């Protein structure tokens, strides 16, 4: 076939005539023809008006001929079997819109007048005008575009080149389109995928309505009023939609399901939530209705509404279930579908167990039943009622491969749009829903989780268009995670992360820098998305700010200091503690996996990691490496949005000695220290190597202790701000607090307690004795603190370089 376009061919002329007449013209011709013929009969028989009668007959017959021509020829112009030129293969709707010298630009404009062309443009979220401007106006440039369009159509198996095909070919040719596509993180393969999506949709729209049976179809079957009340007739739904009309994700299981049902066996669909169990049942209903399973022709699938049934009392439920089953058996054309079947089989006080009623029915093969279970629920049923479980034929549904997931989500997106008038779901949103679903919703299965994300995204659109950003926003709201690209205010915060952390904690510059850099890498999309956002091992003496840095990070970056999951690893020293860590103890559901599922965007702080049992450390290796842990039911919990911080006092003596000797905590020292810790068996090398960074915390020195005390006094002032009172310390009082708040073993850890006992007590006394009124600033001296200044030895470092009297520290309210 050559790339020549003959717009004077009969097919082209017919296409233009078809477009000119249109459906309204066709209907108009039918009405006028009917009126003419009726009037003609009157004129020729009753009215004796022969001349007008014959004229009306001629007009009526001519219009009838034209209407028939339009209906049976013009409106159904197919592709020519052995195409010689391009126009032989062009869809009439596009062919009719081409005039004169066709150029890439005029072809693009003609393509956009057709819904198929607009589909390509809108799904790829492209702006049409820049593409129009970028396309050539030279007719000589058409040849490669036609060839491109032919190749695309042939690759997908499209019978015709329609406006969608030419739009795809032009998008792949246009530089402006290429730029827009790259900006949306898409590729030319994605353009072809959108074309595949369009081709499937055109196939669904254009397919003839299947025959599901005429008016006498169900006369040999019984009435089912109870089932109509307590169930949903899936077959009726399929009939009203004119067929299933979307990609059947588990189509390979339909044959097994219908064969098992035809043999009289009940079918159990086993698969995780979202994998498509109910969709399989809908596709099966379509298969039965359209006669592809002759043994089950005219069978109706009715899904029982568990919530409506179980709302009754136990005695009523048993009676109701018996009536429903009896009705289904008597009707002889019913297949019952028990969605989330475990609801019917619950054991325990007050719960109804349908197993007793169902088992004899299943054994007798008197009713066809499909039940769906998650793998966990199925295990439970098998454990408590092996006989019942043995009555089912199992069909296991696994997560579909990504190309199939994409097809299902695309087709479902079109259906969501039909339900939600005015909504438009772009292809980039679909891809993003699959990407984010895979990364952040690991407890659910594809394609369900991607579809859930798209549905949840609808309320976040401003103009009805669901983009990848809308999907990100929906996930952030749903899961409390942060996945969207750093916006300008956040980017600014990221660049100033160190300063913000230092507002909350003192010194430890190296540690703060390491953590801040890791966060920036994660939010810039540089870090590996399949690992946690950052993993750190903090080594250093007690009371130097390891925990404080973790808390500050939670507060500054995650917005709340409570966005922290803290585990004292010294409580997990035995092998059996693995279970407690992952699943909680008896009567206590709190555990690491539940916590991270509830708060995926958190700092996970593992205190004193060296004290945990090696089995626990092995688990942590998986967490650090893959960013996820799996519970006993096989459900993963993701740590990929979290920052993992493990702290340890191991090597603290070496660090203190190094600092006191005046030597730096450089890379050489760090290497020596780690070798020492590995050599003495404190840490295994594989654990150390899993961390992004090992951060050494040095002991605090005098100026830093003063700053720590200052920060704590600030916190006191922050609390007092509500009463419009502030507190300040004289330099002597501050020195005394530093002396008492420092401990060689615990660092600055006692500082907070000392401030509570001294400053807060003193302020409380002054407020209660009405020595301090609103607006007052309380200045505390050494005597106000009521501390023993003589009897206690001065800890190291005991004093702060004394500030001058004029620099008496003021601590304004925050």
């Amino acid at each position: 076939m050559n790339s020549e376009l003959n717009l004077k061919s009969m097919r082209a002329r017919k296409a233009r005539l078809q477009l000119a007449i249109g459906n309204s013209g066709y209907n108009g011709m039918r009405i006028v023809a009917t009126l003419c013929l009726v009037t003609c009969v009157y004129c020729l028989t009753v009215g004796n008006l022969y001349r007008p009668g014959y004229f009306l007959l001629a007009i009526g017959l001519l219009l009838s001929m034209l209407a028939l021509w339009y209906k049976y020829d013009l409106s159904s112009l197919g592709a020519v079997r052995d195409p010689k030129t391009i126009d032989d293969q062009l869809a009439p709707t596009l062919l009719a819109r081409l005039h004169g010298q066709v150029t890439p630009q005029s072809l693009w404009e003609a393509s956009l007048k057709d819904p198929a062309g607009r589909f390509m443009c809108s799904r790829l979220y492209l702006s049409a005008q820049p593409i129009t401007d970028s396309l050539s106006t030279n007719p000589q440039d058409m040849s490669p575009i036609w060839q491109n369009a032919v190749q695309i159509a042939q690759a997908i198996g499209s019978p015709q080149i329609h406006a969608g095909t030419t739009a795809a070919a032009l998008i792949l040719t246009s530089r402006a389109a290429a730029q827009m596509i790259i900006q949306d993180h898409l590729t030319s393969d994605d353009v072809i995928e959108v074309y595949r999506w369009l081709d499937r949709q055109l196939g669904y729209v254009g397919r003839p309505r299947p025959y599901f049976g005429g008016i006498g179809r169900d006369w040999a079957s019984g009435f089912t009023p109870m089932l109509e009340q307590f169930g949903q007739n899936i077959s009726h739904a399929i009939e009203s939609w004119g067929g299933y009309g979307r990609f059947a994700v588990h189509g390979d299981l339909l044959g097994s399901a219908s064969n098992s049902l035809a043999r009289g066996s009940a079918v159990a669909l086993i698969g995780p939530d979202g994998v498509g169990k109910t969709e399989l049942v809908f596709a099966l209903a379509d298969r039965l209705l359209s006669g592809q399973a002759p043994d089950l022709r005219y069978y109706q699938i009715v899904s029982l509404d568990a919530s409506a049934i179980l709302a009754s009392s136990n005695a009523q439920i048993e009676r109701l279930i018996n009536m429903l089953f009896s009705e289904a058996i008597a009707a002889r054309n019913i297949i019952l579908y028990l969605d989330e079947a475990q609801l019917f089989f619950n054991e325990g006080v007050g719960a109804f167990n349908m197993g007793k009623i169902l088992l004899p029915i299943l054994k007798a093969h008197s009713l066809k039943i499909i039940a769906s279970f998650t793998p966990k629920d199925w295990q439970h049923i098998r454990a408590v009622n092996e006989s019942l479980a043995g009555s089912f034929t199992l069909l296991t549904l696994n997560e579909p491969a990504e190309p199939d997931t994409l097809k299902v989500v695309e087709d479902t997106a079109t259906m969501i749009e039909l339900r939600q008038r005015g909504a438009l779901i772009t292809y980039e949103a679909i891809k993003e829903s699959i990407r984010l679903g895979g990364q952040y919703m690991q407890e659910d299965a594809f394609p369900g989780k991607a579809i859930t994300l798209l549905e949840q995204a609808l309320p976040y659109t401003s103009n009805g268009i669901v983009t990848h950003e809308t999907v990100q926003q929906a996930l952030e709201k749903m899961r409390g995670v942060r996945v969207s690209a750093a916006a300008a205010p956040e980017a600014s915060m990221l660049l100033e992360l160190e300063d913000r952390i230092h507002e909350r904690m003192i010194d430890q510059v190296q540690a703060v820098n390491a953590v801040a850099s890791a966060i920036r890498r994660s939010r810039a999309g540089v870090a590996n998305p399949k690992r946690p956002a950052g993993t750190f091992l903090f080594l250093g003496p007690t009371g130097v700010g390891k925990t404080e840095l973790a808390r500050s990070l939670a507060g500054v970056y995650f917005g709340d200091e409570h966005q922290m999951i803290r585990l004292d690893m010294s409580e997990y020293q035995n092998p059996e503690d693995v279970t407690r860590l992952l699943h909680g103890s008896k009567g206590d559901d709190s555990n690491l996996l539940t916590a991270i599922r509830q708060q995926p965007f958190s700092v996970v702080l593992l205190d004193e990691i060296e004290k945990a049992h090696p089995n626990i450390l092995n688990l942590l290796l998986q967490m650090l490496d893959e960013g996820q842990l799996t519970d006993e039911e096989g459900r993963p919990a993701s740590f990929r949005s979290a920052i993992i911080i493990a702290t340890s006092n191991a090597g603290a003596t070496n660090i203190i000695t190094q600092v006191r000797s005046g030597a730096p905590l450089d890379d050489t020292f760090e290497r020596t220290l780690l070798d020492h810790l590995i050599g003495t068996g404190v840490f295994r090398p594989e654990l150390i190597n899993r961390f992004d960074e090992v951060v050494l915390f040095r002991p605090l020195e005098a100026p830093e202790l003063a700053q720590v005390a200052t920060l704590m006094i600030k916190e006191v002032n922050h609390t007092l701000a509500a009463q419009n009172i502030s507190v300040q310390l004289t330099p002597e009082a501050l020195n005394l607090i530093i002396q008492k708040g420092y401990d060689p073993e615990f660092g600055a850890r006692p500082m907070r307690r000392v401030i509570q006992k001294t400053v807060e007590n003193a302020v409380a006394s002054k407020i209660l004795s009405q020595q301090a009124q609103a607006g007052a600033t309380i200045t505390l001296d050494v005597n106000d603190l009521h501390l023993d200044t003589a009897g206690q030895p001065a800890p190291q470092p005991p004093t702060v370089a004394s500030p001058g009297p004029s620099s008496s520290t003021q601590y304004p309210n925050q």
Partner: protein
Amino acid sequence: MIFELLSWWYGPGWVQAIKRIYKWAHDISLALSAGQLIRSLFEPWRRIVSTGGRSLDVKIKNFLDNLVSRAVGASVRILVLITAGAAMVAAVIFGLFVAVVWPLTPLLILYSVYRGIAG
């Protein structure tokens, strides 16, 4: 365009018109479930049946009830099948009429114009 219209009218259009006779009959058969009605001709009407009971009286009563149900079912189905048959025959007759009149239609238009002018 007139040539294209006439070439279709006397070519594929006429063939399609003849084929449509069979399609109408087939569509009527499907719409009234003729095949299904024949297969289930003596089935009880909407499965309204009496079951249970051990005594002879009850069994006889059930038998008679079910006989009535089957009779009702067969009557309704036969009525619909007769309707379907009549509709199919009518469709075939009309289809044959259309198939015969089809090639004459352009000539009829010319004749009507002639009579309209000639009076």
